């Protein structure tokens, strides 16, 4: 299965792919399929996020790219070369481990210098590059310390410096911010993005935090149960999720069952017909599921699609109020701005909702639907 981005970036030559995974599969024992036939191209210089719930095979994928886990099937190409038979120390990638894995018996300087020494860099050149790398992460001056004398956030930065100092083709990061508290995490998200921009190295960032992936990555691939659900830019994935899983994993969405009755028309369970862009429906026929994000819904009649229902629940969340409506096509969530006093709607009241056909997406009902 090859997953293509909906809008590929302006013609890139095949050699410009930094990483190419082809039919990559990893089985542990007979019954655990951690990674299931993944094919994926990662462009040079991109900030790429591997996003998915815990246990979906992100770490295993990363470990196969790094060389710590042998693929059961498939190929891994780095810059056009098949690296599957190569040990980790012969691959031009570096990893930032979730546990940081700083060498406790070595000073910060020697930790960062470790990779350079293995490549025979010595003397003043070694020193310059180590200091440069520490400056990049904002920790110059700590080189005499031992890892245990640093805070979690500082250790995280050292792990980053230690990997980046080797100027690898690709940097792999396995939930690098997972152990940090929320404030530090937000700070490091911006910091990582700045550093990636500065060094221009391809980053493959593993995370289970959809917000983190959305804010940091140019490209996101969403994984679920060992396979790829969808690949695209954060906007593409949010605006036009192609599976129910993606729609549900990235924010809240309303999914309604219906039947395709024309190239751009779906009849919902209650008989209401809704319009959606032709390319979104993509020539489907029979039973389909359409979706619309709660914030795209307007209360009241309007141009485009409409749907009515009874308010069954309301929750006040400050700037807006969230209502859940019971419609003949299924439950629908909608947000309403609290822009005027007394604008609340009581439970039991009937409401009519409207939205633009362009905000409608269609998800596959068979594969990947939960």
């Amino acid at each position, binding site marked *: 299965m090859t997953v293509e981005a909906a809008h590929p970036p302006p013609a890139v030559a095949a050699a410009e792919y930094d990483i190419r995974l082809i039919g990559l599969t990893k089985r542990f024992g007979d019954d655990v399929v951690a990674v299931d036939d993944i094919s994926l191209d990662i462009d040079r210089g991109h900030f790429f996020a591997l996003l998915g719930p815990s246990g979906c095979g992100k770490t295993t994928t990363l470990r196969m790219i*790094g*060389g*710590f886990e042998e693929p059961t099937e498939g190929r891994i190409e780095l810059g056009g070369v098949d690296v599957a038979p190569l*040990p*980790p*120390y012969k691959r031009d*990638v*570096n*990893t930032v*481990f979730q*546990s940081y*894995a*700083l*060498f*406790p*018996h070595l000073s910060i300087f020697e930790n960062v210098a*470790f*990779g350079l020494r*293995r*490549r025979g860099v010595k003397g003043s050149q070694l020193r310059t590059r180590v200091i440069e790398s520490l400056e990049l992460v904002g920790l110059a001056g700590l080189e005499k310390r*031992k*890892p*245990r004398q640093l805070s979690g956030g500082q250790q995280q930065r050292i792990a980053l410096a*230690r*990997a980046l100092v*080797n100027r690898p083709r690709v940097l792999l990061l396995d939930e690098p911010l997972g152990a940090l508290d929320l404030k530090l995490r937000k700070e490091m998200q911006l910091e990582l993005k700045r550093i990636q921009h500065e060094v221009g190295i391809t980053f493959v960032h593993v995370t289970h935090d959809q917000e983190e992936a959305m804010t940091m990555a140019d490209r996101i691939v969403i994984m679920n149960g060992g396979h790829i659900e969808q690949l695209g830019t954060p906007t593409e994935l949010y605006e036009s999720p192609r599976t129910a899983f993606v729609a549900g994993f990235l924010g809240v969405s309303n999914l309604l069952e219906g039947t395709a009755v024309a190239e751009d028309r779906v009849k919902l369970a209650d008989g209401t017909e809704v319009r959606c862009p032709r390319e979104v429906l993509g020539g489907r026929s029979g039973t389909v599921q359409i979706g619309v994000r709660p914030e795209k819904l307007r209360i009241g009649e309007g141009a485009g699609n409409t749907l009515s229902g009874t308010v069954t629940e309301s929750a006040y969340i400050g700037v807006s109020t969230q209502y859940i409506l019971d419609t003949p096509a299924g439950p629908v969530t909608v947000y309403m701005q609290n822009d005027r006093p007394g604008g609340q709607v009581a439970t039991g009241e009937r409401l009519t909702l409207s939205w633009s056909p362009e905000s409608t997406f269609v998800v596959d009902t068979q594969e990947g639907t939960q």
Partner: protein
Amino acid sequence: MTSVAVEARRPRRSAPAKSLAFVRRHLLTLWSVLFFGYLVLPIAVVAVFSFNAPKGRFNFQWEHFTFSNWTHWNAIPGIQSAVQLSLEIAVIASILATALGTLMALALVRYGFRGRGTTNFVVFLPLSTPEIVLGASLLTLFLNFSTPLGFKTILIAHVMFCVSFAVVTVKARLVGFDRHLEEAAMDLGANEWTTFQKVTLPLIAPAILAALLLCFAISIDDFVVTYFVAGSRVTFPIFVWGAARVATPPQINVIGIAFFVIAVTAMLGNVFVQNYRAKQA
């Protein structure tokens, strides 16, 4: 509980109550001192009697102080060669056993191979088998293979029972070892051997050193197993045992205390180095 009772009684402060309170408060200290004395007293006696100048052949009664036992430590025929043999065996056996034990521990912790459970069990056998049984069965084995008894058989026996201690000591350290450290080294361009040298070895070094010292201490004072497999060779413990039937020269105390001091110094040195490294890290 005790301290609560003491607090409650404080206002009255009668003399017997006060002394009772004192005893209660210092019970743990007293107990510790007694126990420490129990441990140290025999050693102290041996040490003191190494400076004795006994009248007869037995060094059981204090006569007067002398340094001559220390300056003439090898004045007893056979003692020097016995000490030498014990030292040689202990040094070689502890190095071999620690090297073997470290490799076995690495294999046992790192790799899932067929027979791992069995190996784990077999490693524990020498630790739990009575020495007398071990010695007797080793002798049977050597006789069956018509191996001439002597230096080699002593060495084989010592390596055998020391290995288990080395394996257990190093394994304990490896179990808590973060495998990602080795992966990180490889990720940064170190091959298997460099990774072992630069990361694995420095991190398990304290355990290896501890295993070495432990093996040395166990080997140098082993009597039971050694007696079975020594043939005509005489190690220091065998010498002492032989000598004790006709005489106990104070030189035995001298050698004993010397070994003790060396062993304790080495252990303290190890503890000190580890504390220093922990503070540095």
